[in-house]
């Protein structure tokens, strides 16, 4: 049982690491598209890993299989929906005329 707890804690900590990298990229990158890239990919992977770790711990310690399956369903939904929202809003920005950042035309 202890090894399941260790695996769950490692999963949650790796998820926190990806949340941290996504947020730092969201704050530090120079233009809109690279910020979008950082937060879209980082948050999606972080939610997937964190919810998988939590559902593994919950299924192993409390025996609630149905709640764990619901958590995995939420994780899969976010894994599908978050890139879709990222793509839609990035296309909206491109059609509104937000210019990508380049080195020579740097601000």
């Amino acid at each position, binding site marked *: 049982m202890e090894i399941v*707890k260790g695996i769950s*804690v490692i999963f*949650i900590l790796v*998820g*926190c690491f990806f*949340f*941290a990298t*996504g*947020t*730092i990229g*969201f*704050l530090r990158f120079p233009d*809109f598209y690279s*910020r*979008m890239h950082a*937060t879209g990919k980082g*948050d999606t992977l*972080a*939610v997937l890993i*964190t*919810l998988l770790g*939590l559902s593994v*711990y*919950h299924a192993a310690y409390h025996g*609630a299989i149905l*709640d764990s399956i*619901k*958590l995995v*369903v*939420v994780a899969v*939904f*976010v894994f599908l*929906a*978050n890139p*879709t*929202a990222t793509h*839609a*809003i990035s*296309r*909206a*920005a491109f*059609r*509104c*005329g*937000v210019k990508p950042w380049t080195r020579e035309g740097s601000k």
Partner: protein
Amino acid sequence: MENFYLGVSIFLCFFVLLCLYRVVFGPTIIDRIVGVGAIGTKTLVVLVLIGFIYGRIEMFLDIIMVYAILNFIGTLAAAKYFEGRGEI
């Protein structure tokens, strides 16, 4: 394990504050929308952790599902609304 969940929740709330900087001072409107989406994604995980801390995850799961769907729909609606407008 509850103390670990509490620590992770406080860690995520700190990153929510960092995202809130981009929402308040973002150069374009779309930056603000993306920031609100990122805050919603972090809030989803914080809600799961609150459910585990209180031991009522079967009640919080429905709230979590509705929150995920509303976050997705809200971002899509904002993208559709700003798509036909000219310069932002």
